[in-house]
C-alpha cells in the first residue's frame, strides 16, 4: 500500500512538472543591441491586462494588498491594479539596465494632458507620436497576458504571462518578448502539503509567493530586453518637468535691473537651469519645495536672471533643462515654454 502511494505520488508530481516553469518567445531587431549599448531612452506605457477572464486571479489580489496599495491605485478595477503592479516592477528592473527610463508619473501626466485614451496609449501604433511628445527614443508596451489559475489533478498553478514590445520613434519594432511563468501549490513541490493541496489547491499560494512570481517574470523579461543579466545597483530614472513658465506675469519687455523669474515643476533632487533664447543660458534654479505623491514626488524649482546693460533682444523663447547626475552618466531633458519674452536693457 505504501509502495502504491509512493508510485501515485510520483505520478502526480510528474504531471504538473510537465506543465509548470517558464515559456519564452523573443524577437530582437538586429540593431537593437547597438542602440541599447548607446543608452536608449524609453517610456514605459501603462500596461494592459488581457489575461482570460476564466480563472482570473482576482482573489489573489487581496493577498497582494499591501504591495498593490503602494504600486497601484487600490480603488482601480483588478485588471488595472495587476497592470500597474507589473509596470512598476518592470520600471524598477529597467533601472538596473543601461537603458534610460522616464519617470512613469511624467508619462501618465502627459498622456492625461494630451487626452490620450487608454486604448491609444496601449497601442503600438501610437509609438511615433508618443515618442515625439515625451522626448524618448522608444516606447515600451506591456500586456499581462496571463494572471490565471490552472488545475492539474491535485496540483494548482498560478500563471503570470507578460508580453513586452519596444517600438522606436520611427515605428520600428526593436524588441518583443512573450514570457509565461507559473508557480504551483500542492504535491509538485509548492508551498502546501500533500493533503491540503487536494482540499485547498490555491490557498497555499500566499501573497508572498505570487509576489515572487511577478518579480521573477518582470525581472526575466527585462533581462531579455537587456540582453543579459541586470546590473546590481539601480540607476536613476530620467528626470522630467511638467511645468515651465514665468513665475509672475510681466507686461512688455524686461528692463535693466528687473528679474526674469522662472518656475518649473518636476522630478525632485535634480539640477535645473533655464535659458532665455540662446542669449543667456543655463541660469541656475533652486529647489524650493517637494510635494509627496504616491506616483512619484514632485519638486518646485525657481530661478531668476537680473537684466544687465546690453541685454536687449526681442521674442526669445524660454526653456528649462533638468539634469540628474549619475555614476554612469548624466540624464537631462530640455523643455520649452510656449510663449516668448523680450528684453530691453538699453
Amino acid at each position, binding site marked *: 500500500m505504501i509502495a502504491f502511494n509512493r508510485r501515485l505520488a510520483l505520478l502526480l508530481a510528474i504531471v504538473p512538472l510537465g506543465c509548470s516553469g517558464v515559456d519564452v518567445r523573443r524577437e530582437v531587431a*538586429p*540593431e537593437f543591441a*547597438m*542602440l541599447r*549599448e*548607446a*543608452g*536608449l*531612452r524609453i517610456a514605459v506605457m501603462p500596461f494592459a491586462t488581457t489575461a482570460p477572464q476564466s480563472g482570473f486571479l482576482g482573489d489573489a489580489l487581496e493577498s497582494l494588498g499591501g504591495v498593490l496599495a503602494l504600486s497601484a491605485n487600490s480603488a482601480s478595477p483588478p485588471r488595472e491594479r495587476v497592470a500597474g503592479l507589473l509596470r512598476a516592477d518592470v520600471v524598477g528592473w529597467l533601472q538596473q539596465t543601461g537603458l534610460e527610463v522616464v519617470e512613469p508619473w511624467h508619462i501618465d501626466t502627459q498622456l492625461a494632458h494630451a487626452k490620450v485614451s487608454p486604448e491609444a496609449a496601449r497601442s503600438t501604433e501610437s509609438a*511615433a507620436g508618443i*515618442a*515625439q*511628445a*515625451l*522626448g*524618448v*527614443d*522608444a516606447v515600451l508596451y506591456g500586456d499581462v497576458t496571463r494572471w490565471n489559475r490552472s488545475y492539474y489533478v491535485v496540483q494548482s498553478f498560478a500563471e503570470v504571462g507578460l508580453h513586452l514590445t519596444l517600438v*522606436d*520613434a*520611427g515605428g*520600428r519594432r526593436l524588441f518583443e518578448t512573450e514570457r509565461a511563468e507559473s508557480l504551483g501549490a500542492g504535491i509538485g513541490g509548492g508551498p502546501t502539503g500533500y493533503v491540503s493541496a487536494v482540499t485547498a489547491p490555491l490557498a497555499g499560494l500566499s501573497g508572498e509567493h505570487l509576489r515572487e512570481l511577478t518579480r521573477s517574470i518582470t525581472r526575466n523579461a527585462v533581462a531579455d530586453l537587456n540582453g543579459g543579466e541586470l546590473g546590481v545597483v539601480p540607476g536613476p530614472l530620467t528626470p522630467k518637468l511638467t511645468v515651465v513658465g514665468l513665475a509672475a506675469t510681466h507686461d512688455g519687455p524686461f528692463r535693466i535691473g528687473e*528679474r526674469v523669474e522662472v518656475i518649473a515643476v518636476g522630478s525632485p533632487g535634480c539640477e535645473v*537651469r533655464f535659458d532665455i*533664447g*540662446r*542669449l*543667456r*543660458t*543655463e*541660469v*541656475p534654479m*533652486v529647489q524650493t519645495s517637494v510635494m509627496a505623491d504616491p506616483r512619484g514626488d514632485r519638486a518646485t524649482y525657481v530661478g*531668476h*536672471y*537680473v537684466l*544687465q*546693460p*546690453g*541685454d536687449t*533682444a*526681442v*521674442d*526669445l*523663447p524660454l526653456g528649462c*533643462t533638468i539634469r540628474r547626475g549619475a555614476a554612469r*552618466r*548624466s*540624464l*537631462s*531633458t*530640455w523643455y520649452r515654454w510656449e510663449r*516668448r519674452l523680450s528684453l530691453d536693457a538699453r
Partner: protein
Amino acid sequence: MRSSGAAATVAALKVVLLAGAAACAGVSHSLDPSQPVPKSIAVLPFAGSADQLARDCARSLFETRLAARGYAVAESAWVDRRLSELGDLRDPSDYMSDAERIGEVRRALDVDAVLVGSAIDESSFQWVVLRRHSFGGELALRGDASRPWWRASHRAGGFGGLVLRSGQIFTELRAQSAHGTPMATLALIDEFVEDVVDTLPPAPADERIGDAPFVRDVRLQRADPDADRTRVTVSATASPRASLRFDLGPGHIGVPMVEDPGRPGAFVGACDFAAGDVGATVTVRARDAFGRVATAEGAR
C-alpha cells in the same frame, strides 16, 4: 504565373530604385584653391525643413568632426550667444542666415570662415515593400570672398537597415538632450556628416588660435533693494567677447555675466539672495570661443 510576374516587376523596381539610390550616394562638392584655407570656423545654426533636434544634432556632429580634422571650431553655445547679441538669432528653430550679412557675422565671430547649412531636410517614402529614408542638405564654408571656399551638397539615404558608424552621435544627443528623433534618422545624420566632412582637406598643421582667455579684477557689490532680499552685483575684467559666469554659493552656480557694450572686456552680473544669506567669496570663469577657460576669485 500572375504572382511570379508581379514578383518580377517588384524585383525590377527594386533594382531601378537601388540603382537610383546608388547614383545619389556621392557627395557633390567643390573647393576654391585660390582662397586661403581657414584655420578657425564657426558653425552657424542650420536651416531647413528637418526637425530642429535633427538639425542641431547635425550641426553638433559637424563641429566635432571638423575639430577632428584639425580646425579650430568655435563652440556652438558661444556662437549662438554672439549671434543673439547681434540680433541675428532669436529662435534657433526658425533661424535663417542672411547671405548679405555673412561677412559681418564672420567678423563678429572673429573666425576665418563660417559654415552655413541650408535646405537641411529629411524625407522618407514607402512603396510596396520598399522603404527609402534620407537626410541631406547643402553646406558652404564662407570667408570674405563672394564665393565660398568650399561647398557640398549631399543626401545620405538607405533602405531599412540601420548602421551607425560611431557612438559619437549618441554622445551628442545626450549633450543636447535631443531625444525623440528616430534612431534611423540619427544614423543617417551620422552618415551624412561623415560623408561631407570627408571631402574637406585637413586643417593646416600647427596653426594656433589667439591668446588664451584671462579674467581679473573680480569685485562684489552689495545692495539691499528691500528688507527681504540682498542684491549682489559681480564685476570683472576679462577677454573681450568671452562667456563669463560667476559662482556665489549653492543655488548660484554659473550665473551668466554680460559684457558692457560700451566697454569691451568689462563684465557684470547680478543675483538676489534672501537677506543675510550672501556668500562671502565669488569665483568667475571666463570661457572663450574655443572652450579655453580662465578663473579668478574675489571677496567682499
